[in-house]
C-alpha cells in the first residue's frame, strides 16, 4: 500500500487538525458552559498545532 511522504504526512495532519477545529467550532454554540471551557482549551491547543504544522510545511517547501 502507498505510504505517505513526510510532506504528505504534514498535509494530512494539517487537514485532520483543521477538520477537527471546524467540527468543534460548529458544535461550540450548543455546548454547556463547562464544555465550552474544555472545548476552548482543546481548540486553542489544536490551533497551536496548526501553526506549528504550517511552519514545518513552510520549511519543507523552502
Amino acid at each position, binding site marked *: *500500500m*502507498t505510504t505517505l511522504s513526510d510532506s504528505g504526512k504534514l498535509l494530512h495532519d494539517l*487537514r*485532520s487538525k483543521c*477538520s477537527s477545529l471546524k*467540527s*468543534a467550532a460548529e*458544535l461550540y454554540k450548543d455546548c454547556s458552559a463547562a*464544555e465550552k471551557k474544555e472545548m476552548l482549551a482543546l481548540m486553542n491547543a489544536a490551533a497551536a498545532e496548526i501553526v506549528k504544522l504550517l511552519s514545518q510545511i513552510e520549511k519543507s517547501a523552502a
Partner: protein
Amino acid sequence: MEKLNILVLEDDKLAQKVMAVHLAGHNVDLADDLKTSLKKIEGAKYDLGFFDLMLGPDDDYSGLKAIAAAAARGVHCVVVSSSDSDEIIDRAYALGANDFYAKGNEESNVADILRKFLQNRKAAGAGDIFSSAFITCDPETKAAASEALKYAPTELPLLILGPSGTGKTSLAKLLHEHSGREGAFVSINCSAYTEDLLEAEMFGHTKGAFTGAHEARKGRLLEAHKGTLFLDEIGTMSPGMQMKLLKAIEERSFYPLGSEKTERSEFRVISATLEDPQALIAQGKLRFDLFQRVHGYTINLKPLTRRACDIAPLVQHFTKGGRRLAFTPEARAYLENYSWPGNVRELKKFVDLVSCGPEGRVDISAVKKHLKGREAVQQSPAQDGALYAYALANGLEAALEKVAGEIITRNLRENEGKKTKTMADLKISTRLLYSTLKRLAPEEEKK
C-alpha cells in the same frame, strides 16, 4: 432512545471531544492508539465503531488493523478520516468497514450514521415483517420489499409500481415506519381530486382564498414536515400541478393558496403509480423532470395472481382476531387460480363477505357465488392498463415486442440463463430468442 455501545478510535483530543459530544447518550469508549483499541475490541461487545486511520504523526494507517479486528467481531465499522484517497477507501471497505466519511462534517454525518444504523438494525430484527406489516411469502416480492427497506432510512425518493390493490400504500407505510423520520406519514391519492381541489389539498389555503374556503387549512405538504409524503397515482396529476409540486420538492417550500408567505416543509417523497411511467412520459402525462425527482429507487409489486402463494396467509391475516375460515381443497384451488383483477383489495373484500356468511367451512359454491362473473382465468394482456398505455404511445408492434421481451427475460431468469430450456419452454426459434436478447441488450446495459 436505544443506548449503543460505541468505540471511538481517534488520536486527536479535539476530535475525540467532538465525537463524545455527538454521541452523548450512548456508552462511548475512547481509544487513541491501535493497541488500546484492539484490547477494548477484544474485551467488550461494541455495536458501532468510529475509526480514524492515521494515529499519530508517524503512523502508517494502523487504524485499518483495528477495523479488521472489529469487523471480525461483528462491529459496524465507520471510518471518519482525513485520508480519503481511493486506495485507502478501497482498503478500508475490503477490511470490513461499512461506511467511510471524510473528517470535518461530524455535525451532519454522525446523527445520520446513528439513525441509519438503528433503522437497519430494526429492519433486520423485524423478521416477521412479512407475516404482519406486509404479508407475503412470495420470494420475489419479499426480495423486492427487503431491498427497498434498505433505502428506508435514506433521503432517496422511492417509486412503487404495481397494479391497483397490490399493497403499494402498505409498503409505503412500512418504508416510512423504517425511515426513522420523526414526522407523519401523509398519503394523498392524486386521482381522487380535481386540479383545484388537489392544489388546495396539497398546499393548503388561507381563509377566503376561494369560494367556500371559510377557514384556513394546512396542506398535506406541511403535514408531512419531517415525515413522508406518499403520492398515490402520481401520473394522474395535471402538468401544471406536477410543475408546482416539483418546485415544492426542489425548494422545500411553497405558497398556500391565497397566501403571500411561503411555508417550509422537509418531507421525503414516496410515490406510486399503476401505469408504466415511461409510457406516461411518452404520452406527455408525466413530466420527465418530476419523474427524475421521484424515482430514486423503484420497487415493482407483482399482481396477486402471480403470487398465489400469498392468498392463504393473506386470508389468515384478514381473519385474525375474528371468525376463522376453512376452505375445501376445491375452493382453495379456485382461489389460487382466480385472476384477482382487484388484487389484495379484492381478496380482502371477498374474505369480509365470506366471513359474514353462514358457513365457516367455505366450499367451491360459496366461493363462486362471491367471485361470480369473474372466472378463474388470467387477465388478458389487453386489460393490463400499463401495457395498453404503452401500446397507445408506441404502437402495437412495440407493445408486443415489449411483452415478448418480458416473457423471455423472466423465463431465462427462471432457467438460470439456459437458452435451450427457454426456447423449449416458450416454443420459440433460436432466431427469435437472439433477436429479442439483442434488442433488450441496450436496456439491460442502461439498468
